């Protein structure tokens, strides 16, 4: 699951949770240049795909490096 508010699905037991940006723009950022925005979108999408290959027990948060650096 990609979520802008990962604490919620994590607390409810969703096992593989990927941090997105904001509720109003989950998988990208309209304030960035088109190139950076695309990198961000691709980063979130591939983080989500790669999370499918990870063995998890308890709910786990996955996060693209690009998401970290864009957050205020």
């Amino acid at each position: 699951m990609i979520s802008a508010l990962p604490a919620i699905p994590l607390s409810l037991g969703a096992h593989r949770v990927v941090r997105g940006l904001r509720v109003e723009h989950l998988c990208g950022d309209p304030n960035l240049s088109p190139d950076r925005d695309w990198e961000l979108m691709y980063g979130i999408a591939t983080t989500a795909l790669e999370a499918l290959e990870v063995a998890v027990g308890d709910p786990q948060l996955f996060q693209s490096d690009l998401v970290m650096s864009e957050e205020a």
Partner: protein
Amino acid sequence: MRKQLRIVHYINQFFAGIGGEEHNDTPLTVVDKPVGPGRLLESLFGEQAQIVATIYCGDDYFVSNEKEVISEIQAILYDQRPDLVVTGPAFDAGRYGISCALVCKAAQDVGIPAVTGMHEDNPGITTYRHEIISVPTGETPIGMASELKDIVALAHKLLEESSSLGPGDQVGFAPTGIRTPYLRENHAAERSVNMLLARLKSEPFSSEISNLSYGSVVAPEPIKDLSSTKVAFITTAGVVPKGNPDQLSTNVNRRVMEYDISNLEQLNVDEWESLHSGFKGFIYNTVNPNYALPLPAFKEAERQGLIGSIYPQMLSVVGGGCPVTEAKRLGSEISARLQKGGVQAAIVAST
């Protein structure tokens, strides 16, 4: 001479004997006598009661035409002026339970007491708990005869003492979640110490506030080889073709929509919109719907060989006004469809 108890009964197309899922679009129909379980219901109420009308409707028809159906039903109730409305019982049928709850509300809104019956996890109860009086039933009609008796008993209590019915678990209906303060014999300090002592001694005790547990699921095994896996994509932002041709509701949605993305490279802002009424869809609807479901990124991943293939449909639900039990039902429906389509993994983009 005993006053006649006039009752209107609401059921769905299945209990009216019309048919199952395939007759879900049966329009609202009225008959001036008991139908299906209504016959047993009427006889259980006894000689002084009569089901003066049975209203039945297809579950899908109800959900898709809710406003009109409710108006029509209220018009029928104005006409018939019954003393009581009974709906269902709906057991674990989700759409039926919701219609039963809405018909009860419609009756109550025009001053007529109403009771229904359904399983405690039915979305009719979990969504409208505060507003309806429902006998908790089993999941299937197997216990219907005795549950109809419970409905009759509850109806009598409701008609006799509606303003002071008492708590559901004592009177026999699903707790409404409305807490009514009353004076107790011992004060809270004593009650909590007694509860703690009982708990320490492993003796039974009753919590005064109950906690809902959503249950838990074991994490599925990881995908061994993503590059040969078929992946499906689901959005809870209610992404639909612009103009919402299928009239998906922006809130309290009960349907899973599927839209073909097999020939799309991305979602064009002129062609798609996000319906979810729980947040501002401005950016999705005027700048870039792919922020809701990053389709171009997944298509690129497919081109790069990161994933084997993409399920040809994008699944779209509206996350707003969706109680847990309803989400579970939608989730089961989605996973059944995806399994049938050979999908081994899915990503839900949830706003």
